[in-house]
């Protein structure tokens, strides 16, 4: 009996050792594989079964993309897995982790020059694809055409057209600081009658909302009023973080004006959700956000928006200098195909996205402004009309804030906007501090 137990125990021991060996053996294999060959480990499970994985940087359109993935799978049998990230997640950092772990997606999002330069030599050249001739917004660099554009976005001072009309302000006149001051004053006086909390929704909270001030508002200084190919101020910034003092002072004065009429309870520590909800509920006449809030207004805040009468909206330029009459439009990010992944299936999927049935979902349901000329749909997004108007009139500037050094908004400029809003510095100090901070950001 004793012997039997001993044998049994020994057998268990041997088995568990074998299990240990197997576990550590396969653990050893994974890092070695990724170090030696990068992504092909990720390709192996996907390649044979015909499935691709897409990392999407716009979490607000997650549902629509999943729908597209399902349509595509029904049509071709290729499984598309959608992995959405957003809301302040560092997507490039996560992707680098995926790369180190040999778990690269086949299609992933890139948002800036720096993002693309991270992946030099690792992206598939798509210049041979049919969609390339159908758009002006593809991203090309030394590796070829590596970015697939999927939408167009705009940044301006979003306004509630109904309120402006009731207050007797014509948005077309808002092309100078003086006109803005007059309009703000006029609306401010009728605040109670119009049901407004404040004239402007300007939020500067630096922990989660730094991207609004540090990227988009700051981006107005870089590009507002300029021709699409004019890169004067981003070039200056890239040259050791220099700011044009005259232009930036005017910009700072305009920000000061926004602060004067902003919702002071929310300006310092309010969240994005509160900002959009308040605008959608008709409590602000203006809000310092871009066209992406249309999706939030018609989805998450649909009840509030309907309750406020589904008002018409528009964009006004950030006219911090006389004669600025453009809003900024560009493709906010691109989808790239990972060369060592399931590149052929991925390219085919992107090509399919430009077809009629896919564009219908992207435009009509996700609210995208299609960058493809052949697309015949017009989104029912609240901001689609105003964007089309600006595009048709040629009153758009390119945006270059994506060319700023990485992390500048989060680690540097966002906080300065917040300090200015808190009243810790006056306009002159704001300009001076911003100069110092940008020099630090670019200096080391």
């Amino acid at each position, binding site marked *: 009996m004793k012997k039997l137990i001993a044998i049994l125990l020994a057998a268990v021991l041997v088995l568990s050792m074998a299990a240990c060996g197997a576990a550590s053996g396969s653990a050893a294999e994974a890092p070695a594989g990724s170090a030696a060959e990068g992504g092909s480990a990720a390709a192996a499970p996907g390649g044979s079964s015909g499935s691709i994985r897409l990392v999407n940087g716009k979490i607000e359109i997650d549902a629509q993309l999943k729908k597209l993935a399902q349509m595509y799978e029904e049509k071709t049998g290729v499984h598309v897995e959608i992995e959405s990230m957003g809301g302040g997640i560092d997507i490039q950092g996560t992707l680098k982790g995926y790369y180190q772990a040999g778990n690269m997606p086949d299609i992933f999002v890139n948002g800036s020059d720096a993002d693309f330069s991270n992946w030099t030599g690792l992206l598939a050249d798509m210049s041979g694809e049919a969609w390339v001739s159908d758009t002006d917004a593809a991203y090309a660099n030394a590796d070829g055409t590596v970015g697939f554009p999927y939408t167009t976005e705009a940044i301006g001072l979003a306004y509630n057209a109904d309120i402006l009309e009731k207050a007797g302000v014509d948005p077309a006149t808002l092309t100078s600081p003086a006109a803005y001051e007059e309009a703000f004053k006029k609306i401010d006086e009728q605040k109670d009658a119009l049901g407004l909390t404040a004239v402007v929704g300007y939020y500067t909270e630096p*922990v989660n909302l730094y991207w609004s001030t540090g990227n988009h508002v700051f981006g107005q200084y870089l590009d507002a009023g300029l021709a699409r190919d004019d890169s004067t101020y981003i070039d200056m910034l890239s040259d050791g973080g220099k700011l044009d003092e005259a232009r930036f002072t005017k910009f700072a004065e305009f920000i000061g004006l926004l602060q004067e009429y902003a919702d002071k309870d929310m300006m310092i520590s309010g969240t994005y959700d509160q900002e959009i909800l308040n605008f959608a509920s008709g409590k602000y006449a203006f809000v310092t956000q871009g066209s992406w809030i249309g999706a939030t207004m018609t989805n998450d805040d649909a009840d509030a928006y309907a309750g406020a009468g589904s008002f018409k909206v528009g964009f006004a330029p950030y006219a911090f200098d006389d004669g600025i009459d453009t809003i900024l439009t560009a493709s906010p990010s691109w989808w790239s195909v990972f060369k060592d992944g399931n590149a052929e299936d991925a390219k085919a999927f992107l090509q399919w996205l430009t077809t009629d049935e896919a564009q219908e979902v992207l435009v009509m349901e996700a609210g995208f402004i299609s960058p493809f000329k052949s697309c015949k749909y017009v989104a029912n997004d609240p901001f689609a009309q105003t964007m089309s108007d600006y595009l048709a009139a040629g009153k758009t500037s390119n945006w270059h804030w994506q060319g700023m050094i990485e992390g500048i908004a989060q680690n540097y400029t966002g906080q300065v906007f917040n300090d200015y809003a808190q009243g810790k510095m006056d306009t002159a100090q704001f300009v001076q501090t911003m100069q110092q901070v940008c020099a630090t950001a670019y200096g080391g």
Partner: protein
Amino acid sequence: MKAFSMGRKITSFALLIAGAVMLIIALALDFSGSGTSFRGPLLVIGLIALLAGLYLFPTLKYHKNIINFLFLFPLLFTFGVTVIIPLVLGIFYSMTDWTGIGYTQFVGFANYMAMFKEVSFLWSLLLTILFVLVNMIMVNLVGFALALLCTSRLKGVGFFRAAYFLPNLIGGIVLGYVWQFVFNNVLIQLTKTSLLSNSGPAFAAIIVVYVWQYAGYIMLIYVNGLVTVPGDVIEAAAIDGASSFTTLLRIRIPMIASTITICTFLTLTSAFKQFDVNMALTNGTGSISNFMGQYLTNGTQMLALNIYNTAISKNSYALGQAKAVLFFIILACVSLIQVRISNKKEVEM
């Protein structure tokens, strides 16, 4: 030497050779970038064959050593793969211009020089030391006070113990967001501006949240220490007319001296590594109007978060890696001192 049969010798050598060959083939396939699907199993089977061959190796003299090695192997291997190799790689990367994907050149100590020239990094270092000092005292005081409370004869002590310990079970990120909501939406009614929007109060807020989270854990260790103080000693003190305060000071605290050492070092190292609450609550924001002649925008950013933001958000992986090496050296020193002191205590007792 007729102790081993021919069969065993042959089995052993055959297994050793076959295992080694399979391992080499699997590794060669791997490094050559071959996508063959059987190289994983081949590696595992090769490894098992090699180990079995070692076990059956015909020797009496070294048999015990081989067995010892076989039993240690899984642990050593895992330790090597998860700790030693990353450490060596990390130190190497800190001397290159690594981007997180690849590197183009070896830069020597340039990253280390740049690190100490960065004023915001020096600020983070200073702030972390301040945070560690404050927390070492606060967490221990609060934890000890709670432990006294929870070992007294109050009713419902069990409930309080659980309640104080509960925050420790919630992840730091969740805690950070919960408290961010409290500071930005609830307490703002009292404070007018959010506590988190200025560096000083925001730093205090991080300390409060951290103490709230960690004191319960330290309390539990102190409770364990306090209940091991023998009752007869306390009784004797009471008979001698010692007040409860004197008993605490002269009897109970000296008798749990080793617990205090443990708790002090536990709080010290964990406060040094503070990351999640810091990130979720303020993400290092807050301005310092003048530190070494510079305006800083990372008023509440502690060392671990500084490293993370340098690498991830500013995309300077090599510089972040250099900072991480310094961080490792600091923590290694602290741990070594801790071990030294604990050993001394043991000898005395």
